[in-house]
């Protein structure tokens, strides 16, 4: 009996310790975010005089009003949405079609081609950057949406993920549908594709987040201010206006930049957790 209660006490102490650690980690994660939000609600001049004023009143929404009124942040958000959204949709379409092809169709050189696709996982972006820049320059694609979207479409990861997912679906389903008079496209569209939704969600989330946060290629390809994506736009603000317009204004823009992704996260939380834990891949 005594050992039993000691066990309960021991377990509850362990739970308390774990709980404390979780709170510490959560604070470590949330701290910078809360700090950014607090800074964005402070007057710039007050921050210049006393950086610690962030921890006390008064707070103001002037920086947000200025952001809405004066900065390009809205057009950058729109650009990011077009690029990340377009890339996500196109990647899902191409990866699904390619995955179906590799998993279900018999064609000469299929396995060799799949290996070549997988090799794409090992090629770093920096290795092809100059060549790609040159080609896009010849084609006049810089400072255009296609110029920002096209490089991300060659997603070896997406093709690999979808191929593995289609392979995991029993072939009897295809056969049952074929016996049900379904055309090959109808088998793909009505029977198999709906079953890949978890994989589509995983791939879609990774693609969208990757494209939204991408800084490297947009920095090189988008040189005109109106074609900046959010990451490039905010970085340009920091370089040019941080001193003159103040840290509070900069942080207000950062909150604007982060808000859409936060909202997406809240909506797709379940899928993101599944995607990161790898449970979506059967």
């Amino acid at each position: 009996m005594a050992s039993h209660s000691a066990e309960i006490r021991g377990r509850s102490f362990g739970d308390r310790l774990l709980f404390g650690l979780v709170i510490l980690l959560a604070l470590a994660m949330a701290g910078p975010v809360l700090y950014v939000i607090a800074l964005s609600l402070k007057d710039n001049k007050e921050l210049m005089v006393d950086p610690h004023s962030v921890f006390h009143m008064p707070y103001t929404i002037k920086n947000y009003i200025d952001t809405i009124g004066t900065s390009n942040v809205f057009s950058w958000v729109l650009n990011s949405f077009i690029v990340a959204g377009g890339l996500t949709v196109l990647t899902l379409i191409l990866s699904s079609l390619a995955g179906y092809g590799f998993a279900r169709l018999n064609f000469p050189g299929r396995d060799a081609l799949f290996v070549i696709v997988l090799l794409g996982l090992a090629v770093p972006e920096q290795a092809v950057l100059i060549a790609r820049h040159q080609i896009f320059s010849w084609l006049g694609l810089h400072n255009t949406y296609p110029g920002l979207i096209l490089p991300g479409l060659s997603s070896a990861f997406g093709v690999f993920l979808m191929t593995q997912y289609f392979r995991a679906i029993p072939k009897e389903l295809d056969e049952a549908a074929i016996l049900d008079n379904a055309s090959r496209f109808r088998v793909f569209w009505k029977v198999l594709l709906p079953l890949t939704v978890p994989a589509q969600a995983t791939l879609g989330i990774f693609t969208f987040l990757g494209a939204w946060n991408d800084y490297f290629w947009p920095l090189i390809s988008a040189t005109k201010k109106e074609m900046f994506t959010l990451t490039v736009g905010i970085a340009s603000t920091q370089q040019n206006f941080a001193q003159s317009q103040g840290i509070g204004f900069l942080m207000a823009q950062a909150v604007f930049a982060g808000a859409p992704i936060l909202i997406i996260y809240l909506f797709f939380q379940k899928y993101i957790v599944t995607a990161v834990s790898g449970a979506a891949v059967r």
Partner: protein
Amino acid sequence: MTASIDINKVTKQFGSLTVLDELSLSIPANEFVVFLGPSGCGKSTLLRMIAGLESVDAGEILINGERIDNQPPGQRGVAMVFQSYALYPHMTVRDNMAFGLKNISVERSVIDARIAEAARMLEIGHLLDRKPGQLSGGQRQRVAIGRAVVKEPKAFLFDEPLSNLDAALRTRTRIELAQLHQRLKSTMIFVTHDQIEAMTLADRIVVMNNRKIEQIGAPMEIYNRPATRFVAGFVGAPAMNFLPVKIRAEGGLVVAESGAGLRIATAIAAEGLPGGDYELGIRSEHVRITQPAPDAAEGIVDVLERLGERTLVYVRLGDGHQIVGSDSGDSRVAVGDRVGLAFEGAKAHLFEAAGRAWHGQEGGHG
């Protein structure tokens, strides 16, 4: 709707491996035929060739006299029930059943009527709005059958559809399948490696082994007059007893003698039997357990299997061979006992080395 199926000299190869070799078979309309054989004998491949899921390398398949092996699967007018059921997981039961009909643009009202009728027949009306993941194995099985029924096919093809069910449900579904066949009067082909399913369901059994058909016949014909040693050993539980014997003629009939001093007078005509080595085959129900007697065969009891209505007694003979005999359900025999064996020689079969069988009564070989 029902149809006859003719398979003419069909051959199937996977690479250099021949899976079916010039196989021919005629299935009349309305018949319930079971393809029975061990794993890898080609029975599922043959079924899939009829369905159109495997190509035919040589020969032809006809349904109602019309060649169909060059037609796409969906246009052959057959419906298949898969071992794994292959229900579409994201669709409701109703959508699963309607899918095939929608694909050929059947009117909505007709689809609804057929689904309602099939659901009533299979007692799945209350499941129509559920998805397969919410159903038990037995319910999924019924839905899979329902999906086939609504198509009103010329022939039903079943690919080991009971193997994923537990023993009790398997027995019940077996009976329901037999009733379904009586009600629909449709041609049905059923693939299984389970001889009990074959014996209980089939009008005719096609026993297959090693790329070819060993025997085609009604269940009791297969059981009582197996055409080959393979059929004799494969059909029936426990398997038929086999003993190597020397034969000689007595009064025009064969008398078989084994190394253990056994002497079994059979009803097999001695005339026309070629020379060579033979095996005698006899089922356990034709070997009675008796008290040891000076002039009777005897052995030591190895194992007892009490089946309720009878007891199977595994007896080790003097030469090391084991014979399974039958005793009453409340047999008092114990392991280690010395017992006598009384053979019903009239029910014995002879198998020559090549596997061909010779039976008693009418004589000749199967």
